[in-house]
């Protein structure tokens, strides 16, 4: 997680993430990041081998920062909800937020970052470690939901953790085709998977 880094390193990564919100990574220069963060060139090269490494961190953490918001939302839901039905409704709401049209860009950034990690071992190591942490977090949440009797015990928590991430990212398959599926029909299917498979014991 970003909070584990040295404040200077963290500040550089955060500034690069801010720039990534409005520019493709190829257009971002070290000068822009230094200006925005107010950090010196010397410090940048103290914390990173080169400018590309800083951008790799930014791409990986930009996405995981957003996944961490979902993880936190699930965490709050587990703490606050009182009944299986509350839980089911809450899970559907959080899922809706992660699948919203505004998240299309995030999905694309993620796929591009993964593609980059395939040919860049340094980035792959970084992304692999972060991905492991995210899947572990979802796995813990799923296990906790099972313990409360809200998550289906028929499912391996880790498989459930990969499933929710897989359909969120994999929907990118619909992002470059001439036609697109209807969002409401997509939610209808995803809601049914949540209801009948992930939280099966709740409805039965």
């Amino acid at each position, binding site marked *: 997680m970003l909070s584990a880094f040295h404040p200077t390193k963290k500040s550089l990564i955060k500034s690069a993430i801010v720039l990534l919100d409005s520019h493709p990574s190829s257009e971002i220069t070290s000068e822009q990041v230094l200006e925005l963060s107010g950090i010196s060139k010397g410090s940048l090269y103290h914390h990173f081998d080169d400018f590309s490494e800083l951008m790799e961190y930014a791409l990986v953490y930009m996405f995981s920062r957003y996944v961490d918001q979902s993880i936190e939302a699930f965490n709050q839901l587990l703490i606050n909800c009182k009944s299986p039905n509350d839980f089911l409704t809450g899970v559907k709401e959080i899922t809706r937020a992660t699948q919203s049209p505004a998240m299309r860009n995030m999905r694309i950034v993620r796929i591009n970052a993964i593609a980059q990690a395939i040919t860049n071992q340094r980035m792959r190591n970084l992304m692999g470690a972060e*991905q492991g942490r995210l899947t572990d977090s979802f796995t813990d949440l799923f296990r906790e939901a099972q313990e409360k009797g809200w998550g289906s015990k028929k499912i391996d928590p*880790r498989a459930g953790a990969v499933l929710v991430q897989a359909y969120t990212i994999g929907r990118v398959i619909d992002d470059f*085709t001439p036609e697109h599926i209807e969002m409401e029909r997509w939610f209808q299917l995803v809601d049914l998977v949540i209801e009948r498979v992930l939280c099966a014991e709740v409805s039965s």
Partner: protein
Amino acid sequence: MNASHPTKELLISTAFELSLTRPMAEITSDLVLETSGISKGSLYHHFEDFSDLMEHVQVRALSIFTDSQIQGLQELMATSQTKADFLQGLRPISHGNRSPDVGAARLARIESISKALSSTRMREIKGPIQQRITNAIAEIFREANRRGWANSDLDPMAVSVFLQSLNIGSVVDILAPTQVEPEAWFTLIDLILSEVILDH
């Protein structure tokens, strides 16, 4: 989808064959020229640059993958007599084979999708090919509905994108240090098929 000129076609097919056994990044122009026996001059006569050739290779890979998927689905519909046959036949498609080879193929597919998302030109070429797969899988579910084997409340296009998204999106599991047990993943996919998609 064969390119018109035989030299151009030989370059694409040689690079495509090479891509079946190694990552795209390891395929160099020297390797393609040596394997095909074609001169450097000819390569740059038929292609703007080496990455232009490699784009053609990706499109070729996507077309071949698409045709084989569609053929497999049509055979499945032709041979299934009962809902149980259909479920059985859907398993290999939706489970996604989880061997390391297929892991490499899935990574290559991610690279290819990434290119389609970042370049208008590639999106215009690959978008319609991807649409053919999505439509073909949706058509299978429409037919399954007619036979009373699937959940007719669901949109066949959404089902098609969902099943593909699981396959593509499980790349997150390939990247992580620890992987899901294949049996646990198959159990989950089977539950989705039987409790949601084929339930009616």
